[in-house]
């Protein structure tokens, strides 16, 4: 029972805590799990989240920053004023819970369709494009000297990686070829200044409330590279959920994202943002194919995995709208 292990752990580092209750698994792959639970305390319970790799799954997959790095980045973001969960505890061997960390639970919504449709978020929506710009700028400005060890990525390396992933699917997609060619021809080269890139700054990794963004989650893909990548990725049409005329997550125009970013004292390079929007669109399309392959070859033989393969064509039309737009 995970509650026994968590109870032992919290009593050791949370003064006054008597144990935990209501542990529920929120998500779990083979190598990483997320649990929600309550820390029981005489002055009131505290909602908490455990992210961990269970014992025996210590090694992080190649693209991931690793859970210790994630905890460190989340802590740094919190200290810099990025809406972020407080990191309560980084797991140690004596916790006997695997590797990972425990953070305070932030109440709010991560499901894009609810955030974009429900009345509860109506007053927050018009502000979000600008706020996301400000948050991205703060993330990119986190002090280099304090960052954990992270991968470095250049546009050139990412194009190569995407090309290999696409080729491994072994299913010809002329539109993807066109996009790969466009990316190679428009490779902007290294950025003026290499910075921390969140790497997955989009719906699903943002907890949003009626007052706006409450937390940025999931630093798994954080790396050092071109900060414009985060701005391009959040504009990918796949994250607009039908609000196709509001590029920033379905909330608002690019201009507001850029204004928020520049208010925070950083410069936007709109051409680089467009480059990364094209790259992000292709990346999501290739990822759809990859998930379908896991349905075909792997242990996850679910209908959802199968159907996601049929969403690659959504990114094909998005790529054509970006690269070969038709007249009005």
């Amino acid at each position, binding site marked *: 029972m995970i509650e026994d292990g968590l109870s032992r752990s919290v009593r050791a580092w949370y003064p006054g805590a008597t144990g935990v209750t209501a542990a529920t698994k929120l998500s779990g792959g083979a190598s990483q799990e997320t649990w929600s639970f309550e820390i029981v305390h005489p002055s009131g319970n505290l909602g908490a989240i455990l992210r961990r790799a269970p014992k025996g799954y210590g090694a992080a997959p190649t693209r991931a920053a690793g859970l210790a790095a994630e905890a460190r980045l989340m802590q740094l973001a919190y200290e810099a004023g990025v809406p972020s969960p407080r990191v309560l505890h980084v797991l140690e061997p004596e916790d006997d819970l695997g590797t990972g960390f425990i953070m305070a639970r932030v109440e709010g919504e991560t499901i894009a369709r609810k955030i974009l449709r429900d009345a509860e978020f109506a007053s927050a929506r018009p502000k979000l494009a600008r706020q996301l710009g400000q948050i991205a700028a703060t993330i990119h400005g986190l002090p280099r000297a304090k960052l954990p060890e992270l991968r470095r990525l250049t546009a050139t390396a990412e194009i190569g990686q995407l090309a290999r992933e696409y080729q491994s699917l072994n299913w*010809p*997609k*002329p*539109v993807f*070829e*066109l996009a*790969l*060619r466009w990316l190679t021809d428009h490779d902007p080269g290294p950025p003026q200044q290499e910075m921390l890139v969140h790497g997955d700054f989009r719906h699903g990794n943002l907890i949003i409330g009626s007052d706006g963004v409450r937390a940025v989650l999931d630093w798994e893909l954080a790396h050092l590279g071109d900060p414009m990548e985060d701005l391009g990725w959040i504009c990918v*049409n796949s994250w*607009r959920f*039908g*609000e*196709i005329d509001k590029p920033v997550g379905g909330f608002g125009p690019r201009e507001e994202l850029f204004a928020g970013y520049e208010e925070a004292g950083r410069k936007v390079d709109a051409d680089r943002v467009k480059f990364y929007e094209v790259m992000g669109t292709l990346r999501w399309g290739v990822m759809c194919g990859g998930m379908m392959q896991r349905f075909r070859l792997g242990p996850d033989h679910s*209908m*959802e995995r*199968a*159907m996601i393969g*049929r*969403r690659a*064509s*959504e990114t*094909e*039309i*998005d790529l*054509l*709208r970006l*690269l*070969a737009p*038709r*007249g*009005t």
Partner: protein
Amino acid sequence: MQDEPTPTELTKAVADFLRDDIAPTLSGHNAFKLRVAINMLDLVTRQLTLEQGSDAAEALRLHRLLGMGGSLMELNRALADKIAGGEMDLQTPGLAEHLWQTTMDKLAVDQPGYAAYKRELGRGA
């Protein structure tokens, strides 16, 4: 020749039964899974209905563009290679139109409710 009803009619009958009679009796995770299952069957029905016509038109366009024959898979591989090698690009007469039409035909099967598809459908070729 196989007898009636056609696969399209059979698949549609199953999807309609699940949608009209079973879905209202489920909730939570099973209701979600059933929605995915119905979506899958609807996709198969659309493909069975549309595929023959769109495949034939695609093969004809590819034949004209590439000046060669072959299966759709072979033709698409050849086109992909030519784009990758820079032999064909958006300046090539007919290429953009071909990619647009092929993509629209995919969306008609995969995700006809996708907002960008509906926008482009309204725009026409």
